[in-house]
């Protein structure tokens, strides 16, 4: 929770690129304005390699303790993409920067390390990603389901768009006794 000098969007991008070089696969900075005064708000979309993911989060926590809004996920066919939506520099008037860090997991081995040891508040959203996307969070402190009931069929993941999704199940609900 060290308070450093606030970086701007390019500064944040450089901060990560200097450290992780080519493992930062893509950085996109999107600026939008709103209202009569056209104040800017910045969204940074950053794709990182899975191998350095945990280090990126640690590096981020060195910058300022970030607010993790939620983790969202996409089934992209061969891979599952997780997107961690962070807020940086909140608490200053119009100073917030939204940082979205995404990481691709191969479907053959959809595992990722937990970030609960750095950000304890990530637990709820990590539990949700496990049950909804069928990924495995390594080292998660609480491995139970979150929203899905205990008798929900195993191996069915509502957000998947492949054969593990819900399409087949909802057509044959009698098979799962629902």
């Amino acid at each position, binding site marked *: 929770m060290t308070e450093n000098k606030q970086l701007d969007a390019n500064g944040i991008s450089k901060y990560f690129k200097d450290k992780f070089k080519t493992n930062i696969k893509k950085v996109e900075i999107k600026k939008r304005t*709103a209202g009569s*005064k056209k104040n800017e708000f910045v969204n940074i979309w950053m794709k990182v390699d899975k191998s350095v993911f945990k280090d990126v989060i640690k590096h981020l926590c060195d910058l300022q303790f970030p607010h993790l*809004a939620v983790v969202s996920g996409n089934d992209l066919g061969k891979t599952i993409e997780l997107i961690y*939506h962070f*807020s940086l520099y909140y608490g200053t008037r119009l100073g917030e920067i*939204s940082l979205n860090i995404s990481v691709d997991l191969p479907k053959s081995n959809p595992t990722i390390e937990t970030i609960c040891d750095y950000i304890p508040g990530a*637990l709820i959203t990590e539990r949700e990603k496990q049950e909804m996307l069928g990924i495995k969070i390594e080292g998660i402190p609480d491995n139970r389901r979150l929203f899905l*009931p205990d008798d*929900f069929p195993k191996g069915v993941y*509502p957000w998947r768009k492949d054969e593990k999704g819900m399409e087949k199940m909802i057509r044959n609900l009698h098979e799962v006794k629902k």
Partner: protein
Amino acid sequence: MKEKTTSKTTYQLPIGPIHPALKEPVMFEFEIDGERIVDVDVSLGHVHRAIEWTGMRRNSIQIIYLAERICGICSISHPMAFIRAVENAVDIEVPERAEYLRVIQCELERICSHILWAGVAAHEIGFDTVLFLTWQMREKVLDLTEYLTGNRITKAILTIGGVRRDITKDHHPKIFETLNYLKDNFDKLRHIFLDDKTFQLRSQGCGILRYEDALKLCAVGPTTRASGVKKDVRVDQSYAAYGDLDIKHITPDLLTGQVNGDVYDRIIVRLLEIKQSVELIEKAIDQMPSGDLVSEPKILKILATIKKTNGEGVGRAEAPRGEVIHYVKFNGESEHPYTWKVRAPTYNNILPWIPMLKGEQIADIPIVAASTDPCISCTNRVAVIDGNNNYELNKEELHRLSVEKTRRLMK
């Protein structure tokens, strides 16, 4: 927390899933030592309605009205976050006048929600006359909402690229009448909640959430601001017309000079925010520029643009309970979103319940649980229902315990 270890000194007390002194289903499993709460576990999912899943089979205009139904109270905040996500993904500019109109609608919703919460909080500690007083005030604001939008709860006022109805000079007398009514009654409300002995006894030093916990557990909204974390999307980001208006973080030290992070502080934050919202509406009406209401009136054109979009966007908004964030992704093939993720504020305020409730008494459960203003239907969105038959302490029983504690303290 996971292992059920009942020893001779402690016992298990499940509360819920139906009405654990809340108005919505959630399941608490407490470990109790005498009257003290040693540990607590929360389970969710009892009102999971598969709304995200349903949304991925609707087009973006239809989703606005679906998003409105995620929560009966935040029926502006959810569509607001969703349309901002779409506007960011598709790059749609919003007319300036529409941004101001959005602020007015958002702040009316916040006033309704905070007053409603104040009434519920009073009810939880057995102070039912205050419940009636606050809800009478809320009724005036609902009347104004109905006058401006045509509906009390599901307002259907926002659309992608703007708003659907204007506020003209003809509306002003009624708006100012209601705002003046609120201002006249604000001091009464403040006196009841902050100076009353009963409220102080039940809320001060109760359900404490420390600054570090609020930060680490990623709490949002008045819950986190009452612990001193300055986090308010309206202040931090430039969205709608909030960037133009003079607005600052509301933390309890503005009034008392210190931050305790207890239930009392959460009451202070919400009360001050009611006042702030009234001022914001006045400023917004005063500064509102003239202009269009929507950037593109033809819905089919918007949908055609969305169909060609290959991109993603996030939208954040400050709901009465805290930050709500929606994520959408379009794949350039369909007007339905490829992915739609909703995160309601209560989702992040689940974990902070644990440090708040530990060490408190059974009779404090209702007021501590209610102090985050939980909205369970918002939080549970995606699946089905499961009821565990357990020994239940029902709502009436729990409410009775809470009322008895108030009586005891007043003696």
